[in-house]
């Protein structure tokens, strides 16, 4: 299925059937990431040098379940994602995409099963996971009465970034918010708010970035910023997982694709060679599979 090679523990390259595995073994890196890590003289691609043990999978989810009251939302999700991958998570409304991201972001606890980010258990090592995870949900999670600059400085301080002011200015420039940096967040348009939310999500340069329908409200220019951001992160060995309903844009951003239907991963494979029509067929098939369970 995939042409991406994996580096085994002994460093021997071997072809991989898929960069995205369901509940597979750990200690794998993509060849691309291993080269990047070697070039940078670090044991692993984590830019922060903290949190992610060497050669840990970026994300590993095993038999994860989560219910809200009597209603099961996640019903045994298995997922393993290597560092530097860009996963597009598709699925119908109510399939459990947001819940899965919230579990990985430590905002929701698993009922059963395990979820690890950078080798860290989201339930037992939540504080360490928060340092290496960025999350941008449906809500921008910013303070509307603070300015763009104040928001980013505040969150940089919360994440322990040493030069919070400098980091805030860098993100303002990076996300094209310089003209509105002194304006209160509540005066921003939906698209500009989403840019600010993305800037907040990467304020500590997270090893794993979780984006819930990040393209919402973004114009073509802003989507270009998002695409560049995701690609640069992949080059640096950082993983991005995003949910979306937009097949074309999702495939444009992703290196791997998964489909979540009725609380289970029903499809996982590389994005290369997959077009929107084929993806829609897979989604329709997955919905049928889900209904049967």
């Amino acid at each position, binding site marked *: 299925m995939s042409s991406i090679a994996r580096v085994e523990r002994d460093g021997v390259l071997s072809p991989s059937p898929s960069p995205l595995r369901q509940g597979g073994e750990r200690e794998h890196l993509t060849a691309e990431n291993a080269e990047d890590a070697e070039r940078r003289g670090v044991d692993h691609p984590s830019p922060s040098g903290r949190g992610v043990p060497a050669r840990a999978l970026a994300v590993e989810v095993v038999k994860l379940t989560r219910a809200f009251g009597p209603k099961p939302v996640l019903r045994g999700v298995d997922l393993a994602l290597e560092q530097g991958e860009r996963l597009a998570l598709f699925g119908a409304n109510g399939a459990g995409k947001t819940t899965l991201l919230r579990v990985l972001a430590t905002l929701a606890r698993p009922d059963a099963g395990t979820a690890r980010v950078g080798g860290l258990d989201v339930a037992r090592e939540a504080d360490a996971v928060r340092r290496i995870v960025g*999350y941008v949900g449906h809500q921008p*999670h910013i303070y509307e009465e*603070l300015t763009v600059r104040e928001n980013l400085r505040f969150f940089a301080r919360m*994440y322990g*970034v040493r*030069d919070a002011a400098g980091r805030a200015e860098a993100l303002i420039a990076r996300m094209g918010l310089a003209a509105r940096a002194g304006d209160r967040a509540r005066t921003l348009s939906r698209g500009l708010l989403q840019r600010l939310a993305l800037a907040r999500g990467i304020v500590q340069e997270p090893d794993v970035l979780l984006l819930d329908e990040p393209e919402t409200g973004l114009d073509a220019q802003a989507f270009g910023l998002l695409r560049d951001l995701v690609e640069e992160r992949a080059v*640096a060995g950082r993983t991005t997982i995003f949910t979306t309903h937009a097949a074309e844009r999702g495939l444009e951003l992703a290196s791997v694709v998964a489909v979540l239907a009725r609380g289970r991963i029903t499809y996982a494979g590389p994005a290369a060679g997959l077009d929107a029509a084929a993806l829609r067929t897979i989604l329709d098939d997955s919905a049928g599979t889900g209904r049967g369970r």
Partner: protein
Amino acid sequence: MSDTNMTRMTTRVNTTEISPPGVGGDGALGTASAFARQVMAIVAKDLRSELRTKQTWSAMALFALLVLVVFNFAFDLRVENTAAVAPGVLWVAFVFASILGLGRTVAAEHDQGPLDRLLLCPVNRTVVYFAKLIGNVLFIGVVEVVAVPIFAIIYNVPVALGGLVPVVVLGTIGVAAVGTLFAAMAANTRARELLLPVLIFPLLVPVVIAAVRATSALIVPVARDAPWVGLLAAFDVIFLSISAVAFEYVVED
């Protein structure tokens, strides 16, 4: 691979210097320093937001003044009754106004998901509790600074400021300690405005009794009275300890 992609592939992303909260200093001192920095960052953020909107302070102050005025007409305030009635009125005004403020400050944090903005950050949940507690004490304190002089004038009570300050501070901390915890708990429910007073009024009874009796003793000193200020301090320690520990379990999913 296109040239554009090649360019992207060789782009180095600047690494942000991050000192893990609570680990960046010299042992316990560094941990305490990080704790204090994070608490003050949240408090400063809340104060900045409130100074721009002034919604909470203005509502609380107006409500406290209304209570003082209404009770002034409702009770028989002859000189011999004042010492018995006035302290109770003062603390009813403070506690009622506090409920407004407690509900508002936590609700403002919940407008984009229950505390998600703070819970996403790698900060100890106790940091969040103490930051919200300090913010609430400051909010209530401003209302008290406005209300006490007006109370002294309306009820013709000679306020001994030196003695009243510790009583008001301790009473306010007690109200805020319980209120911050239960406001966070109630905020996850639909009927939070109704639930908050129902939850915290019974728990505030010891604090209010001690505060009222301590204030009354300042107006008309009583020989061999119970050490109400000491009891108030003891209630504060108990409520602070329990609430700080329980807060994590209240806000975590």
